[in-house]
């Protein structure tokens, strides 16, 4: 699980009103720890009697670094005091009010909307239909912004034949499916890169599409390849960033006159999204970053 770090929401199967928030690079292993299958690894708070087994109902992934995931987790666990939720918007104002699922989801949404985590373009994956319904119910009336992707897979993969059900309960199969798809996506990208680079001979020069300068793979620069199908545009990461920032700023300025919101938008260092130079398709910056890391690893 390279570079994978996620925050998760646990729900007790025995007591469905009990939840637990945590973060981990390996949810399956972590779930086993929670359920008591693996003894090493803590999870004391979930080892209480009568609460096991647990299942993971919600995963937030796409964190660019471990620290950011930890920050997110801490903020989610302490929504009444975190600085990422402004006082106006707070749902939970003290320790006692953040335990219900609605509040937890509401706080999650608030965090996802916060400026800090917005830039990371996190992704959400839901495993449980009821949680999803609550999400849609949106009791706290918070709408999240567009660049957060939500996926779900509510199927319960009950593998009766599989003797590897370590413990009763725990949605290990769902998690496995999730990771399958996740890795599939990754592999798809890797294959694409390999294709491209294999097709290149030594002599062919790569040119950054934006700055139209030589692009040296071997150098330490980071590059990006558009991750959509059929588009093989390559560019410097930085060039792309600047390009995105410019376009975004322009858009903002154009909108300002009609802007209902008085709030001045600060200049951004990190773009959130943009359009590919060649194919024009929508690109999310966080994905671009992760892909460029992959490229760096491959070469």
């Amino acid at each position, binding site marked *: *699980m390279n570079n994978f770090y996620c925050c998760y929401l646990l729900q007790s199967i025995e007591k469905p009103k009990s939840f637990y928030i945590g973060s981990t690079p390996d949810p399956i292993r972590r779930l086993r720890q929670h359920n008591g299958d693996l003894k090493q690894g803590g999870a004391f708070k979930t080892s209480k009697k009568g609460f096991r087994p647990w299942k993971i109902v919600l995963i937030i992934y796409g964190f*660019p670094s471990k620290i950011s995931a930890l920050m997110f987790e801490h903020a989610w*666990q302490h929504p009444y005091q975190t600085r990422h939720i402004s006082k106006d918007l707070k749902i939970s104002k003290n320790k006692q009010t953040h335990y219900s699922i609605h509040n937890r989801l509401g706080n999650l949404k608030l965090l996802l909307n916060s*400026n800090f985590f917005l830039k*990371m373009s996190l992704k959400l994956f839901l495993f449980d239909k009821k949680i999803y319904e609550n999400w849609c119910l949106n009791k706290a009336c918070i709408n999240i912004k567009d660049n957060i992707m939500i996926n779900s897979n509510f199927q319960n993969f009950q593998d009766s034949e599989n003797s590897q059900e370590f413990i009763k309960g725990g949605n290990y199969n769902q998690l496995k499916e999730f990771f399958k798809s996740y890795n599939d996506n990754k592999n798809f990208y890797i294959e694409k890169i390999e294709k491209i680079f294999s097709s290149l001979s030594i002599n062919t020069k790569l040119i950054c599409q934006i700055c139209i300068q030589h692009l040296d793979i071997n150098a330490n620069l980071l590059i990006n390849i558009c991750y959509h199908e059929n588009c093989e545009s390559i560019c410097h990461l930085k060039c792309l960033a600047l390009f995105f920032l410019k376009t975004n700023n322009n858009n903002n300025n154009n909108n300002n*006159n009609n802007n209902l919101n*008085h709030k001045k938008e600060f*200049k951004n260092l990190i773009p959130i999204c943009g359009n590919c130079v060649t194919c024009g398709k929508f690109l999310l910056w966080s994905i671009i970053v992760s892909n460029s890391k992959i490229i760096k690893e491959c070469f």
Partner: protein
Amino acid sequence: MGEEEECGIGDKNELYISTQFQSKLDEWEAEDDVKLKLQKFKNDDDYQEKNSVPINSNSMRRGVYGRLELGGTVVMDSRQRKEEEEEKKKKKKKKKNSEKQRKRPKIKSITSHVTSNYSNFFNKSPETAKRQISILKLLSGRKRKVNDIIRRIQAIEGDSGDSGAEGRDRKSAVDDDDDDEEEYDDYEDQDLDNSVVLYKENEWFDIIKSINLKFPNLSKASKLTLSKITTSLTNNEEKLNLASSDGIWNIAANPPVKLTKDELTWLYDLDDYKNSDDFSNGKVCFNSSQLSNDDSEQLPFLMTLSQVLSGTDYGNKITKPDWEISDSSPELSPLPMDNTIVTEDKQLSRTEPQVKNNTIPNSNKSSSSIIADFSNVDGNDNKNRDTDDEIEEISKYKFKLSQRNKSQLETIGSSKKDPITLDTSLVVTNNEEKLRQQNNDRMEDPCSSMPDRISSKIQVPKSFVEPASSDMNLIESTSAKSPTNSSLNNHEIVTSSPVFSQLKFKKKNELENPNRFINQVEPENTNIVVLSSQESDYGHSINQLPGSFNENENENEEVAEIDEPATGSHVLTHKNSQEDTVYSTANSDFFDSIKLQEESSNLNENRKRKKVTETTRVEFKGKLKSLIKEPQENVTVMFKNRKRKSSHRSETNNSNNDNEQTKFSTTTKLIEVKKRKYDLDEIANSSEDEEGEDISVIEITKVFEETNHNDNSDDDNIIQVPSSQKSEIVFLSIADKDPHENVQSKNDSGKSKDEIYSTNNTAIESSNNYTNQDNVNQQLNNTDDEEEEEEYEENFESLSTQDLRTKLNSWGLKTSKSRAKMLETLKETSKLIDQSQLSQFQQNNNKNTESSQLPSLPLSQQENSQLSVKGQIFDKITDLVMKNESLHLDILMFKPISLKYFQKLLADANINIDISLVKKYLDEQGIVATENESVNKEGVEIDNDNDIPDDNSD
């Protein structure tokens, strides 16, 4: 005390007590022991003294525990020692004996009794085993469990190959167990024949003797049972039924699972006459005839009391109405407690509102008393009142109150009854069906006409309601209509009418409606008697039908305006009337502002007809603080934030008025100062405007009828505040001559001053965009920046600490305790920001609002300044970062960055800002910053991912 002696069981002197008592006894015993010990210590002394060997007084004496001591050491002769030891032993023995004796008190615990007598289960005779088992069952109360356990034990024992006899016994026991459960079918056949294990014969006879003594007059039944038992006892000596009979005890303790037909008839006093109608309605009035049917299918014979009652004498004697409303219907109209339903046609015609719960003509005393009863009747309450008196069958749809009431009290239910709800039943015999249907109508009647509280109580099961037929009847009020089948055809009306009309409708109908529920409040009365405002309450309640209150909207508005206390609690929702918004509570600034604009504009227009108006718009920021009348060359005209207090406004109003008056009187000038968010003149009552210091723009209009006022030439007035260094607004009057403009003022200290600011003069610090006035602009632009800075700096230091703080707040900076620090921060930030930009920002925002003409949240003055300061600072930092490419790249890659490194960077660039502001910046930009020291050369933290799984445990 525990139970009395049970005759014939064990020793007559034995008593059985609870374990609690036993424990107490133990405690007491322990105490007694201690006491004894203490006494004995005393006695020891005496004893020793008596038998003591003469001791030299010099050395020997008694020490602790009675031992001889010599100078602190214990000295004893060996002989003495022996003696002592022997004595001790004796004492111990005595103790033991006494304890034993004590341990056999008259009071004996059950456990001890049982264990002593029955401890060896299978070694003893089967009889004792039987007794043990029966006692166990008796005491445990869980017969079946005990049976199971015993069976298992026996099975185990049986398997292990015990002696044949015992095995037989056990098997028979097992078999008998099985038989037992089936035997419950026939109560008569039951194990009376099988021995009563609980008692031995002797015991039983003793019991009977004592019973006969104590209860000489036994009923036949009981005598019978006793005799039966005795016979069974005598007969069953030889039978070895281990676990078969549970004795009378258990039989009596548990209800029989199934009752035979005879039992039921006996139990429920059924007769054979029931209508099939009742049954088709689903009412559970079962007959003995029905009993003959399959027991298990239709009706559960084990049922609640309410079900039982429905079929009992209670029901039999009353001819039940078919249309009983049991529970779960949708909301029904409330019962008129005021008995208006009552019976006679005259009453039917009554349309007047009737007061609740008061004596009503034609009401009986009984009715009033019954009303009280009604209030107590819940769905769960099935008070079985004697209805024998009551039920009269009425030929018409007249119901006597008493009947109705009492029959209502029956709460005759159905098996599907919702226990929480009530049902009413009015006794109508001839037209039962119609009434029932009528009820059904009522049920379908959207009881949204009812206030919410009632609807929750009443539910009639729709399942029992047969659909409305053409004969649907609702009782109408009109006397013309006789209570016959044809009379009540208002079903359609009822269902279709909107709420309010329903209410009115109810006036007529519900008086007579027999289907009122007991606990309901009559809405009519409440509605009618109540103020119109309350009606509007109804109209506004969420659960009621919408759209029905067109009639009353006006009322609502009126109410709103009047602001009656009756509706005080009632929230005025999104009402149309303008005035509502005036009264709306906080966060209505925007609306107010818009409205004020409108109104002021209206007023302006009005006035304009008469007079010539000149408008000048002054944009400024900051708070208005005070107005200084005296024209000065520099500055000093300051406004105060109007919005702060309502008193303020009133005063300003006054001031305005005064000014106006004066102006009228003197110059016949009307000067209206419009402020965007509040109109000085117009809304005297708009006291709800809250907070916000939002003055961003002041429109000043001058209206003059005459042209004598050269003063107010185009060179107008006032204006603005280019960003003042102080938090106060500096209103510099340009040039002229305008004597007075009305502005409110308020001091820092909060006192309001009414000052008219003069529009004289002089040079004003430059600021950018002001409407209308070129002069102003020119003048404004004339100042130098340097001068500004100097002035600012000077101003910083000249400000009091309080002012410094407010200034810092306005810029969104953190205040510190010492003045020096605050000064520093101010200076630093002032370097960073451009004052002109502040104002520009302001103006841009305002322009946007104006141009867009869309509702937008007006930012407070402070917020604006904060934002602008923030923005400027942040932009500078971003510029700085962008220059540093490596850093920028790391940020783009979402790498965590060391905070210290970042701070260094800022410091190098002479951007000295508070760390909190730095953190805010980082949050805003999505930069992850840590305080971790692990940095590489570039100052970027090394990635820690992946190698070791690191789970964050909570």
